[in-house]
């Protein structure tokens, strides 16, 4: 982008500045630290100037939004066309309480729904299972059967909203319930839109909601992708997630690298199934974190967009531009929130929201300031949603596309992060792929080492965390926290009893037997799951069928 003579002149001028203007000040008083690093530990220079990005080729490396390699964004108009989807992840207690929260959020201008299921549903157990004790309705909504799902979306037309569902190992079950409900509402499959997380690899790496061993659980993943590709064209059949990788301690570059490694594994699995890459890749979506270090986050998003585009084009031979676009949801960093001085979290979330907007996300969840203490209250959720609206409407971040492009620092960091992603992908390839790398604990250990280093930096004071290791103070505890009634377990157990007594046992048994049969073959399981949920089989019952067929996963722990 710069000619050689200009670069030479700038280099000389910089040397002059360093020997003169700068040196005078440094001699008088040094800087605060010897080495400055980003929150992920990337060493950061005092100043960036054209020689730092002398290799940058505008057409090759940046291009235009909506065009390959998508560094500047996946759409040609970005937020000038429409803002990102404001989608707050929510769910607690019963389906009825959560339905009220959803309708409140939609009334407040939220534009999409995002379902948080309680842990028993995520782990494939019914609310009355012994392992569900104490967990019912705690971190999400209790959904055991299609009856609960019907209450969850009461008065919400499924052709008017898009819904994201955070469900992984049991994903086909919850998708089947949603699609059956849409059918009940008279909404045709081509009008149903949304996203299902369906990313089991990161459950094994770091999130812990796995059920089955890697191979059969990947089979269910691919079954779902294949079914949606044929029947539900507007559905994003996977959301490959870096969010939890970052939450568990990774750096920004590791977050992108390991997510892309998982994305490569899913793509390969679909191709191995016999699917054409361009038939499913446009419906692969992603989910990332966003911390407070604004430039690093923006660079991370840009680097990942560019890298994924190259992977799809060069590695998988994709021809459809949509296959090459990294489209993603963002959630602000849960782990960045402090229980100390919780109102400070509003500021953290605002900066993270700003970074997500500058980085070009397609949808966004903002965390609430009280989430280091409990599930968010309605008041806290409202502030979080308003934060998005302020960033969209007032901050100017949406006026122009990819506004930080061309900054020497941003471009340099984008390159650095892309290089780091590339090194990890090459290493994982050399090991024999993502599954092998996970099996050997390589990815887990890389994340844990970063988590350990971060903790040590906080405790040594090397890295400042406001309210934790600096600017601390005594304060009264935050009151008015959201509490989920411990009785929720009994209520759901009662409901299940009634369901099991009232349903057509013959039909139910036939459906489960059929599912068991299909699961033992190579046939796609989703149609059989749809029959089973319509026969009012529960999440636990369906997941038990697969426990019988596939066995259960017991991970090795790497400390």
């Amino acid at each position: 982008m710069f000619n050689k003579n200009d670069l030479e002149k700038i280099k000389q001028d910089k040397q002059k500045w360093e020997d003169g203007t700068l040196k005078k000040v440094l001699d008088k008083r040094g800087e605060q630290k010897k080495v400055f690093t980003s929150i992920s530990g990337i060493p950061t220079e005092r100043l960036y100037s054209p020689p730092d990005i002398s290799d940058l080729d505008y057409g090759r490396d940046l291009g235009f939004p909506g065009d390959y390699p998508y560094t500047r964004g996946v759409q040609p108009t970005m937020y000038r066309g429409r803002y990102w989807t404001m989608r707050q992840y929510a769910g607690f207690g019963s389906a009825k309480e959560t339905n009220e929260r959803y309708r409140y959020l939609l009334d407040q201008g939220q534009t999409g729904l995002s379902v948080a299921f309680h842990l028993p549903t995520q782990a494939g157990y019914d609310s009355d299972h012994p392992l569900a004790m104490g967990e019912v309705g705690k971190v999400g909504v209790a959904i055991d059967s299609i009856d609960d799902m019907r209450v969850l979306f009461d008065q919400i037309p499924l052709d008017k909203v898009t819904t994201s569902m955070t469900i992984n190992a049991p994903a086909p079950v919850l998708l089947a319930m949603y699609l059956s409900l849409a059918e009940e509402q008279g909404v045709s499959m081509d009008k149903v839109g949304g996203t299902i997380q369906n990313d089991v690899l990161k459950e094994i790496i770091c999130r812990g909601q796995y059920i089955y061993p890697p191979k059969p659980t990947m089979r269910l993943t691919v079954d779902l992708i294949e079914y949606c590709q044929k029947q539900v064209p507007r559905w994003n059949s996977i959301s490959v997630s870096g969010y939890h990788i970052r939450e568990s301690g990774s750096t920004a570059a590791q977050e992108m690298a390991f997510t892309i490694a998982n994305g490569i594994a899913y793509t390969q699995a679909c191709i191995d199934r016999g699917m054409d890459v361009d038939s499913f890749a446009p419906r692969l979506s992603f989910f990332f974190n966003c911390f407070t270090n604004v430039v690093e986050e923006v660079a991370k998003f840009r680097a990942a967009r560019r890298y994924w585009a190259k992977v799809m084009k060069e590695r998988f031979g994709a021809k459809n531009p949509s296959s090459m676009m990294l489209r993603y949801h963002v959630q602000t960093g849960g782990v960045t929130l402090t229980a100390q001085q919780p109102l400070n979290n509003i500021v953290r979330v605002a900066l993270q929201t700003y970074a997500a907007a500058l980085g070009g996300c397609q949808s966004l969840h903002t965390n609430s300031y009280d989430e280091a203490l409990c599930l968010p209250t309605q008041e806290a959720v409202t502030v979080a949603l308003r934060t998005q609206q302020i960033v969209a409407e007032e901050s100017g971040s949406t006026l122009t596309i990819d506004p930080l492009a061309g900054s020497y620092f941003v471009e340099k960091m984008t390159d650095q992060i892309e290089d780091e992603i590339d090194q990890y992908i090459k290493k994982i390839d050399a090991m024999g792929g993502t599954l092998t790398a996970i099996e050997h604990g390589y990815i887990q250990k890389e994340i844990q080492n970063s988590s350990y280093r971060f903790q040590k930096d906080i405790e040594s004071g090397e890295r400042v965390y406001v309210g934790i290791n600096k600017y601390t103070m005594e304060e009264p505890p935050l009151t008015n926290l959201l509490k989920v009634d411990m009785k929720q377990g009994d209520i759901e157990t009662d409901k299940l009893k009634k369901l099991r007594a009232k349903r057509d046992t013959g039909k139910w048994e036939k459906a489960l037997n059929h599912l068991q049969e299909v699961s033992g073959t190579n046939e796609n399981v989703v149609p059989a799951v749809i029959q089973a949920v319509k026969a009012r089989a529960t999440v636990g019952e369906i997941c038990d069928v697969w426990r019988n067929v596939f066995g259960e996963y017991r991970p090795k722990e790497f400390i």
Partner: protein
Amino acid sequence: MAEKKIKIIVAKPGLDGHDRGAKLLSRIFAESGMEVIYTGLRQTPEMIVEAALQEDADVVGLSSLSGVHNYFFPRVVELLRKKHMDDVLVVGGGIIPKEDIPSLKEAGIAAIFGPGTNTDDIVDFIKDAVRNK
């Protein structure tokens, strides 16, 4: 004479998958000279107490970020007492509202360490408590 190594079980009760803290502390406990057994996820109180019994542990460290501490933590203490293992020190951590702490302590949890706690403080607390038992 060298002090006997403190043996600690680090456990994740319930279905919660947030294990960053549990794994980090396992490493830090080991570095501070303790013998650490990390149970992994999805432990029932019975499984945790069985592990403590088998290993003849001095300490059980419980981590929960899914809001189930009021159920699981006291249950572990109760089962330890039933097995006559009253001398095992039980500590907990995770996302735990301050207002829940008094009743947890009453139930026999020696200390609750919330987000942002310095890990040295946790190590010191455990070493002091075991020494003064």
